[in-house]
């Protein structure tokens, strides 16, 4: 899921300084789990903005916030409130903010900063395991991603900087390569890594902005 963090309220207020009436947009998926754009946070935002003298014309929780058709449909349902608003304050990821803009044609403001593609360890604890590089090498690295979980994204083994198995860049993190090494030994696949050619990431496979079109016939998942 996409991990977001709420912007400081003064920054949000600053972005709304030239406007009076705001329509709030939340998201039922990632932003709800991150507690940055679920119903609870949207309602709290409405209250805080009203305390600051803003008019909140209405609010909606898109299901999910990153779906253009869903956004269009919901904005039609709330047409009057959306039209009446000077702008939309969007409490989702950056994708959702842009979808809200495309679907409404209104001025939009992000309420969150979008951080990473996260896994959920337990409620409220997110970790970055995948950086969506477009060229998955997890088969070679024992199911642990060095591209993401090594601070330098080293693909050919560790740097010399691990201290007691912890990363020198952030000692809260385990050294990904020590984890990979332990795992490959455990499953008897260290030799395969040793024999593998020098690893070099191909950034051209994922040139921004990327689009993907599933094919109507056939599996649609594989490159032709």
């Amino acid at each position, binding site marked *: 899921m996409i991990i977001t963090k709420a912007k400081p309220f003064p920054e949000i207020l600053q972005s709304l300084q030239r406007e009076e009436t705001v329509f709030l947009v939340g998201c039922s998926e990632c932003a709800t789990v991150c507690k940055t754009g679920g119903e609870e946070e949207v309602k709290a935002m409405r209250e805080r903005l009203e305390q600051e003298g803003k008019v909140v014309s209405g609010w909606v929780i898109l299901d999910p916030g990153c779906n253009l058709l869903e956004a269009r449909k919901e904005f039609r349902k709330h047409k009057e409130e959306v039209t009446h608003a000077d702008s939309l304050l969007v409490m989702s990821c950056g994708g959702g903010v842009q979808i809200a803009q495309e679907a409404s044609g209104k001025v939009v403001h992000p309420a969150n900063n979008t951080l990473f593609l996260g896994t959920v360890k337990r409620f409220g604890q997110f970790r970055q395991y995948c950086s969506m590089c477009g060229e998955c090498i997890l088969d070679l690295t024992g199911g642990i991603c060095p591209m993401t979980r090594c601070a330098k994204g080293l693909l*050919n083994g*560790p740097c010399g900087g691990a201290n007691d198995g912890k990363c*020198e860049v952030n000692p809260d993190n385990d050294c990904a390569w020590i984890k990979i*090494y332990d795992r490959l030994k455990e499953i008897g696949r260290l030799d395969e890594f040793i024999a593998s050619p*020098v690893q070099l990431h191909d950034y051209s496979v994922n040139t921004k902005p990327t689009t993907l079109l599933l094919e109507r016939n056939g599996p649609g998942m594989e490159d032709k």
Partner: protein
Amino acid sequence: MTALQQALSTGKFAVTAEVAPPKGVDTTEMMQNAKYLQGKVHAINITDQQSSVMRLGSLASCRLLKEAGFEPVFQLTTRDRNRIALQSDLLSAFTLGIENVLCLTGDHVILGDHPQAKPVFDLDSVSLLMAAKKLQEGLDLAGEKLEGAPTFHLGAVVTPGYEPMELQILKMERKVRGGAQFFQTQAVYDPEEFRTFMEGARELHVPVMLGVVLLKSAGMARFMNKNIAGVNVPAWIIKAMQETDDKVATSIKITARIIRETREMCQGVHLMTMGWERHVPAILQEAGINI
């Protein structure tokens, strides 16, 4: 063939030391530090934005040293440049008469003085070595042909005190496969730890130069033990630095002793001087090393 390559390939005990470019354009001190090493070392390493602190470039500094009659080792990290810039700098180095290249990944930018900078790491030390090796074969990483191929003497680094050691040797082996022709190590203070490492590295048949950082105080030793991975300064050294009235003399004695005790295990020594280049001649004399 470079003087360093000549020394390593003929079985001479090779000596290198490190000089850091200034933060700014006043190169007086850098050149003075190099002069202390004249006739004492085979080559001088020039660091590349060491510890991710922005400084005068390694390539320009190497050329200045070369013009002054020294043999430089161009340290090149993958932290700040993508593969296009790295390969281009390798070609530039050769055309400027610089052939010793030490290929490193480099520290993370977050540890330096521009923590907001974009960390590049398009290549790592292994793929950088591979790129340099391919350039020598007349091809770039994209497989395109070069008009005139460079020649290099390629080095890499290794941390003997790393745990687990097998993993560090595994990375070292990948560097050799990538193209590394010699290694300079992270600082070593414990000859026995180094012996164990060299036994592990023996199968790779590649020259290893023991790295030593000149200790300036007991506090510095304790700081390194705490903060620098793979560096283990033994208690007796810390005690000696603590109790001495003459830190310079004691540091020289300790460094010379480490060199003497490890000399038979490796092919050379790399002195990381941290501004104490002027004491290198005394260390080498005390260690009985003459190039």
